[in-house]
């Protein structure tokens, strides 16, 4: 296929897609991989992190040493969230990727593996905030009832409070996935071949930049639309209490 003339906007878009569909689809795959791994990994890590941040300190019964230890864990957890929510992912990516590459300690360290780790640690901080909100939304009566039925604090957290908190958090976590689909575009700064990077490369020989990025916009829109629909569906199936129709 010949490169269409400057004035042929639509034809140029079709030309770019037909010529570069391989790298564009590869980039799409990487974007989805980053978002899936980032959101699932971030969720699992955030469970631990959030528990660490809401750890229960019993001032009357616990020894001083235990209290200090718990308080330290709590502060570390909060510090993590402040650090990773308070700096842009693009900055984290530059520091972490080139920092560790300079140390030269991992043979498997490349843009993709680094990108997966960066998006995961970043998402952990965000999902931890979602989960903390979910925990706070569980009425205090749940804990009180559990305790009066003879459960320890930890048992009550594990069996009564956390399941409800996770249920409360599902929309927020799903939202985090949709956000990741778009925000992982910044990882192209460390040369992760995601959808954004792939599309940019597809314009590298011709400098038809707008046309190339229209392709990116369409693909991003399709995947975020589908995943928002899926998140809504999931939410209905899990059945978070009865929702007021608006």
């Amino acid at each position, binding site marked *: 296929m010949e490169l269409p003339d400057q004035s042929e906007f639509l034809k140029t878009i079709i030309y770019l897609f037909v010529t*570069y569909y*391989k790298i564009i689809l590869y980039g799409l795959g990487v974007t989805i991989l980053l978002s899936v791994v980032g959101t699932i990994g971030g969720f699992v890590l955030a469970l631990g992190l959030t528990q660490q941040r809401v750890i229960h300190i019993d001032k009357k019964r616990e020894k001083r040493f235990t209290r200090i230890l718990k308080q330290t864990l709590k502060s570390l957890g909060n510090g993590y969230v402040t650090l990773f929510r308070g700096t842009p992912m693009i900055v984290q990516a530059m520091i972490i990727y*080139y920092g560790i*590459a300079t140390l030269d300690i991992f043979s*498997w360290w490349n843009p993709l*593996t680094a990108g997966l780790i960066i998006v995961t640690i970043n998402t952990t901080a965000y999902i931890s905030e979602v989960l903390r909100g979910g925990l706070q939304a569980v009425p205090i009566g749940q804990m009180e009832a559990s305790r009066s039925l003879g459960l320890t604090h930890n048992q009550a957290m594990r069996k009564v409070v956390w399941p409800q908190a996770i249920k409360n958090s599902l929309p927020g976590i799903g939202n985090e996935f949709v956000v990741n689909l778009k925000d992982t575009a910044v990882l192209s*700064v460390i*040369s992760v071949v995601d959808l954004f990077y792939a599309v940019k490369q597809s314009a590298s020989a011709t400098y038809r930049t707008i046309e190339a990025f229209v392709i990116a916009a369409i693909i991003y829109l399709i995947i975020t639309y589908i995943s928002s629909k899926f998140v809504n569906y999931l939410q209905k199936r899990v059945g978070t209490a009865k929702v007021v129709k608006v």
Partner: protein
Amino acid sequence: MKKFLSIFVLMMFGISLSACADSRETLVVGLEAAYAPFNWSTQTANEHTVRLDGQIGYADGYDVVVAKYIAEKLNMKLVVKAIEWDGLIPALQANTIDVIIAGMSPTAERALTVNFSDIYYRSEQVMVVLKTSQYVNATSLTDFSGAKVVAQLGTLQDDLTDQIPNVNHLTPLESYGAITQAVRSGEADAFVAELPVAQSIIGTNSDLTFVQFDEENGFVVTDEQVSVSIAFRKSDTELLEQINEVLASITTEQRNEWMNDALDRQN
């Protein structure tokens, strides 16, 4: 879904394995693959292209031809990695790549961090404008007085922009793709580019053209500013000497021919 994931896991291992080859038998070259005609990426292989390490597709362009020539002369296996411009020098220092062959000008600032080879291409600086622009018939920098001019972040062209009298120096952009767009959309009146880059841009963007200057009416530049060199780690002096020897064997005619061929292939 499982199959889908396992393919990606394999892909990741493939990338990580290919990354750890002995650096003395292989020459790992870093470039943007987005700075035509020096280097760009393509999906179709030809006799000049080299597979891009860790992604789908091939690198083509003047730099790739030079890299291939060097690797052949030094009997090394050539690996080409596409890396964002800002990441090239960090990647060099992190041993991710051995050399940068990316149309990079050997400026004094960069030379504090990396070593540069002898010049492997020399070019002149021009201004790219819309064909319909009021600046089309400009003959000197003074004619661009008051124009909105844009350039790529962290490049020589961005520094040169300030030589235009009363210039409205816009915030520098990330890539030539974005810069081209800024001029096409009228957001900027012009941008400064090396002649081959300008030629390649107007070759694919028929609404653009470029303005050349006589030596006394154009930008004041030093030799090192208008030339491109290969960058090395400070410690890597042996490789630098070997590659300088190879570069010395390439005549100016040969260089110009390679550049013209690259411009042809790109369109």
